[in-house]
């Protein structure tokens, strides 16, 4: 009855025939993007809850007799509500899972060469999504206004200030003055709950739109069956009901995992950090910033240079130049590894020694720079660690390349094979 009423007005049947019958190739690694999307949905829902209770101000208010910033007090009060701390932890855990899912998704796309023509645009949109998500995480760090928040944000402030030429203007734009300014928390709150989520929504929409246009890449095993049917028809399961069933199950499974983690694994205990005070505890950023954090430790203090009036301080080299270079490499990948005809099947990474070994080297490099964040507990001097980073990266590249070459020669496969 009801569905008929809607169908008469919205022509749902037509919509179903056009979109819900689309084929969705099956491969478990195709679900990382969905995990990121579902984490985003969880973040929005928990974020709405937190938004009702959070107070974006650093005016001093009384909390159990002590005068603390209002933002800090409001988050302590959220933690004291029934389920309040769990909701806040679900929010934080989901953010970590979202970034992990994006990074894994990116790795999957890279190693299966799914970034090649015609999918370069979606590769770039995906990178933008990663960047904006990291921005969401960074702006979220500050909001509880604990000792941890303020120290972490202060480091971000000085990194943005160290950007050559425009650092002063840029840092005051992002932080609404010289951090810690009274305007920083309201500005980050606005960025975190308004601008960044809107940007994410827009980019996600665009990402999916381009995906619908291109369709998924397919497992190479589908190739013969597709050719037998005489050309490009996607083999997979329909969006409705099969894929929808998988996706909804995945969403609720993910939610249950996140709720369990939030319940049992403490995260960002702001009550333990306390409100901002003049002392910096031993602290590390969340895992996704560890490569930059570690790299900053390796740059010697006397390493700096100037170009056309722009000063590249050690902070600028570690915090701006290094991540910028990483981003540039990622952007350039589909334009360096070019093909003339559109490719719609995923490649076996074992058959592509050059790209796969470079990817492994990149992973080793990020792992080693992450490890550099721990030189204080590992008791390694920065200069030796810098050498280890280079050696391990080069070894990872060389060894994986050699092994893959041998593997391909044995099977007479490899980069030279026309696909």
């Amino acid at each position, binding site marked *: 009855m009801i569905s008929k009423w809607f169908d008469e007005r919205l022509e749902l049947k037509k919509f179903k025939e056009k979109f819900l019958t689309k084929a969705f190739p099956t491969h478990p690694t195709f679900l990382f993007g969905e995990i990121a999307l579902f984490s985003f949905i969880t973040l929005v829902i928990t974020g709405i809850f937190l938004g009702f209770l959070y107070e974006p101000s650093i005016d001093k208010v009384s909390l159990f007799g002590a005068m603390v910033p209002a933002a800090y007090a409001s988050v302590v009060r959220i933690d004291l509500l029934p389920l309040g701390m769990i909701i806040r932890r679900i929010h934080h855990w989901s953010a970590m899972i979202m970034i992990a899912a994006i990074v894994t998704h990116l790795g999957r796309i890279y190693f299966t060469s799914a970034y090649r023509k015609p999918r370069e645009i979606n590769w770039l949109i995906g990178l933008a999504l990663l960047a904006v998500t990291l921005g969401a995480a960074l702006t979220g760090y500050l909001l509880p206004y604990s000792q941890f928040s303020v120290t972490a944000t202060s480091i971000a402030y*000085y990194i943005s200030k160290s950007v050559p030429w425009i650092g002063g203007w840029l840092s005051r*734009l992002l932080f609404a003055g010289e951090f810690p300014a009274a305007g920083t928390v309201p500005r980050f709150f606005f960025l975190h709950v308004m601008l960044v989520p809107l940007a994410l929504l827009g980019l996600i929409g665009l990402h999916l739109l381009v995906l619908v246009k291109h369709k998924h890449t397919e497992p190479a095993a589908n190739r013969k069956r597709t050719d037998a049917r005489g050309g490009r028809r996607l083999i997979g399961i329909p969006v409705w009901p099969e894929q929808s069933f998988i996706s909804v199950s995945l969403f609720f499974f993910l939610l249950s995992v996140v709720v369990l983690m939030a319940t049992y694994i403490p995260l960002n205990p702001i009550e333990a950090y306390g409100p901002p005070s003049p002392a910096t505890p031993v602290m590390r950023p969340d895992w996704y910033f560890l490569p930059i954090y570690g790299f900053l430790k390796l740059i010697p203090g006397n390493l700096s240079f100037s170009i056309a009036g722009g000063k590249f*301080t050690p902070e600028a080299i570690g915090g701006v130049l290094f991540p910028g270079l990483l981003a540039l490499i990622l952007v350039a990948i589909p334009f360096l590894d070019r093909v003339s005809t559109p490719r719609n099947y995923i490649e076996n990474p074992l058959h592509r020694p050059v790209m796969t070994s470079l990817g492994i080297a990149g992973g080793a490099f990020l792992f080693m720079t992450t490890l550099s964040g721990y030189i204080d507990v590992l008791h390694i001097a*920065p200069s030796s660690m810098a050498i280890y980073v280079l050696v391990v990266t080069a070894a990872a590249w060389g060894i994986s390349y050699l092994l893959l070459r041998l593997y391909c020669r044995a099977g007479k496969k490899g980069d030279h094979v026309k696909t």
Partner: protein
Amino acid sequence: MVETNSEGKEGKVTRRQFARGFLLAAVAGAFGSLLSLLKVLSPPASKGGGYVATVALGDLLVYAKGSRQGSLLKASDFQVGDAVLAYPQGKTGNEANLVQLIRMKEKEFKPPTRLELTDQGFVAYSAICTHLGCTVSWMKNEKDPGASYTECFCHNSIFNPARGARVIGGPAPIPLAQIGVKVSKDGTLVFTSGFSGPVGPQV
């Protein structure tokens, strides 16, 4: 107005050209005018920029944190190898004023430490790391107090307090600035100079 649909004659603008030009000018104008917002949204830099210390000669040192926060430091409370974070009394709102007061053996001081700014083994340096602005910590060596040093926990910059807080490890670009202290007659500690160099991150 019939001829506007055809190709324009020399010196005449077609409807299409006009529309395109108008659109271009409108877009350029709209975005151009918005550029001024980039200036408005970024507040002007404060004078001097960043950390500006307001310590004056004769300011008394008080505890910056802990249970005795705000009360006066007494020289008798410090053994060799002890250190504490301190503010000038009444000026605790300005982070640039935060110093680390250290007591060492007087004969351990070596250049470039400025001996005239020390007194009875007391030496004070800015507590704001010159790398990215975290507060430095005191790494006390219980067995050998003379081997204690100052470390910033953010990126492990290490400073040698016996040698003018020069950088002996990590990414900090310059030493922590020294500031003069002396023990007054009643045993309290008092500032005797301003900072000897720049305070805070060097960006």
